[in-house]
C-alpha cells in the first residue's frame, strides 16, 4: 500500500514539474518578455535596464531555476495589465467558477450514474433506448448551442430565468444545467457499458447460482465492480472543475476563471494565463491522484500489485 501510494505521489509530482517546465518554455517561445511588457517602441536603454533587473540576460538554465524557485514560493508573477499578482486575480474568480461547476458535477453524477445503471439493467428495453438516445444527444450537442437554446427558451421566450450575469442564484440555474447535462450524458453512457460488462462476468452467474436475489447481486456484486471504471470518468470531471466552464461562462457572462482566461489570452496577459494553466494542471493532477487512491480502495488487485497502465 505504501509503495502504491509512493509511486502515485511521485508520478503526480513529476507531472507538475513537466507542466511548470512547459509553461516556462511557452512563455519564452512567445517572444521577448521585456518587449512584451515594455512595448516595442520603448527606448532601448529602458529595455536593457529591464532585462538586467529581471535577470533576462542570465543563462537560460539560471532563469529556469529562478522561475521554478519563484513558483515554489507561490510567486506566479504579476498581471501585465493591472500590475496585481496574477494569483490574486485568479483566486478571486475561483469561487464563482466553483459555484457553477460543483452543482453541475452533482447533477452529472446524480443523473448520469443512475441513468446508466438503469439502462444496463433494462438492456434493449424502451427505457434503455430512450436513455441512450438522450445521452447521445446530450453529449453531441456542444455546450454553447445547448446554452443558447436554454437561454432562448427559459430566458427569452418564457422569461423564467435571467440569461446572464451573477446577481443571484437564479442566474446560476441555466449555466449549471448546461454544464450538467453534457457530463451526465457522458457518465450515463460510460456507466451503462461498465455495468453491461460486469453483468456478463462469471462471478455474477456464481452469485445467482448460490441463491443471491437478483437485486442484491446487482448491488453487492455488480456495482462495486462497475464503480472502478466509472470512477475514472468522475475523477476527470472533478479535475476539470476549474477549467471546464470556459465556454459556458462566456455564453452566460459569468465572471469565473474561464472568462478571466479568455480575457487574459486576448490581452496577452501571460502571467495570468500561466497562473490559470498551473492551477488547472494542479487540480487535474490532484484529482488523478485521488482517483488512483480510490482505485486502490475499490480494487484489491491493484493494492497488491501496482500496475502502471491504469491512469
Amino acid at each position, binding site marked *: 500500500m505504501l509503495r502504491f501510494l509512493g509511486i502515485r505521489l511521485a508520478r503526480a509530482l513529476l507531472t507538475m514539474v513537466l507542466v511548470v517546465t512547459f509553461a516556462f518554455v511557452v512563455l519564452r517561445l512567445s517572444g521577448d518578455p521585456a518587449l512584451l511588457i515594455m512595448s516595442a517602441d520603448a527606448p532601448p536603454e529602458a529595455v536593457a535596464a529591464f532585462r538586467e533587473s529581471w535577470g533576462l540576460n542570465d543563462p537560460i538554465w539560471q532563469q529556469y531555476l529562478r522561475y521554478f524557485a519563484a513558483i515554489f514560493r507561490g510567486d506566479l508573477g504579476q498581471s501585465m495589465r493591472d500590475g496585481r499578482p496574477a494569483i490574486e486575480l485568479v483566486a478571486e474568480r475561483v469561487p464563482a467558477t466553483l459555484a457553477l461547476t460543483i452543482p453541475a458535477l452533482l447533477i452529472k453524477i446524480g443523473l448520469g450514474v443512475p441513468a446508466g445503471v438503469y439502462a444496463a439493467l433494462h438492456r434493449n428495453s424502451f427505457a434503455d433506448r430512450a436513455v441512450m438516445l438522450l445521452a447521445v444527444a446530450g453529449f453531441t450537442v456542444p455546450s454553447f448551442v445547448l446554452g443558447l437554446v436554454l437561454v432562448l427558451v427559459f430566458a427569452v421566450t418564457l422569461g423564467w430565468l435571467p440569461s446572464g450575469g451573477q446577481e443571484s442564484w437564479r442566474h446560476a440555474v441555466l449555466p449549471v444545467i448546461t454544464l450538467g447535462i453534457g457530463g451526465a450524458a457522458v457518465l450515463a453512457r460510460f456507466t451503462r457499458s461498465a455495468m453491461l460488462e460486469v453483468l456478463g462476468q462469471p462471478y455474477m*452467474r456464481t452469485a445467482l447460482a448460490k*441463491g*443471491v436475489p437478483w437485486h442484491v447481486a446487482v448491488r*453487492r*456484486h455488480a456495482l*462495486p465492480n462497475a464503480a*472502478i471504471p466509472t470512477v475514472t470518468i468522475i475523477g476527470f470531471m472533478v479535475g476539470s472543475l476549474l477549467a471546464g466552464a470556459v465556454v459556458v461562462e462566456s455564453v452566460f457572462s459569468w465572471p469565473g476563471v474561464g472568462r478571466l482566461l479568455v480575457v487574459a489570452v486576448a490581452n496577452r496577459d501571460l502571467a495570468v494565463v500561466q497562473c490559470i494553466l498551473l492551477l488547472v494542471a494542479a487540480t487535474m493532477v490532484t484529482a488523478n491522484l485521488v482517483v488512483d487512491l480510490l482505485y486502490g480502495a475499490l*480494487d*484489491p*488487485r491493484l493494492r497488491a500489485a501496482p500496475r502502471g497502465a491504469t491512469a
Partner: protein
Amino acid sequence: MTTTPLVEIRGLTASFDGIPALRGVDLLVGRGEAVALVGESGCGKSVTWLAALGLLPGKAAVTGSVRLDGAEILHAAPAVLDRVRGGRVAMIFQDPASSLNPVHRIGRQITEALRLHRGMDGAVAKEEARRLLDRVGMPDARRRLDAYPHELSGGQNQRVMIAMALAGGPELLVADEPTTALDVTIQAQILELLAEIRRDTGMALVLISHDLGVVAETCDRVLVMYAGRIVEETASAELFSAPAHPYAAGLLAALPPMDGPRRPLAAIPGGVPEPWAMPPGCPYAPRCPRHVAACDRAVPPLIPVAPAHRAACIRPVEPERTPELALA
C-alpha cells in the same frame, strides 16, 4: 428405490434469438447418484443445467419441465428459485478465478451463502466458513478467509467455489467442467475431493465434462449429449465396454488406450452441425460411419438397446463389434 427422482428434466428446450441450443432433453438424477454429462463443446451440457436453474440470460427462451423432488422449478418465482439455487442445487463452474468476485474477500463470499441458506451471521458464519474451507482441503483456512481471489491459485479458488457450494448443504452439486482450467495434478485432487464429499454427505453429483477419463473415475452413470439432445444413457462401465451410439463409440475410439498396443487415434470426421443447419434426421448422420438412408428420415428417439442402456440410434453399434470398430 425411491419413487420420485431428485431431479427430473422432461423435454427441456432452450433457444437464443430463435436458434435452438437444447432440442428436448430428458434426464433423471437420483438421490446421491453421480451422473456424468459428456459431449463436445457446444452440445448443450452446461446450457441444460443453466436453463434448469433459470441462470440463462433473459433473451434465452426455455420450455419443458424441471422437477426437483416432484415440484416444478422451471419458470418458478424468483423467491422460490433463490431458495433452490445454492440451497438445494449448487453449481460450480469451469473457470474458478473469474467465477469469484474479485473485489470481495473469499470469507465474505462464503458467509454470504451461509447467511442466505442457513441464517448464519457474524462470528458463527465466519467459523463455519473456516470449517468449510478446512473441509475442502484449503491450507491455513483461517487466514485464507481474508484473502482475495487473485491471491489464490486456480485450484485453491476451485476449492473456495466448492466450499461455497457446500455452504447451503445442497442435495445436488452440478459441477460444470470443474477441472478443465486446472493443472492435471490439481484435477485429480479436485475430483478426489468431490468423490469424498459425496461419500460423506450423500449429495448427488452431476459432472459436466468433455473428458471421458474424468467421467470414468467419478461417475456411476453417463449421459452422452450431441447437438442439444441426449443420445446415449448407460452405466459408466457399460459405456466404455459397449457403447451403442456410433457417436459415443467414436468418442471412445478417439481416446488413447491405457494398455495394449499403440494405435493411431481415430478422430471423428467433420464437426457438430451448426444449429441453424441441422440435418432433418439424426444430427450425427453426416459424420456417422454407420449412416444409411433411413437415418435421414426422422430424429431417432432414445430407446432401450440393453437393460439400463438407451441410445438414440436406429443402427446401434453391437457390443461384439466394438473392438473391431475401434481398430478400424
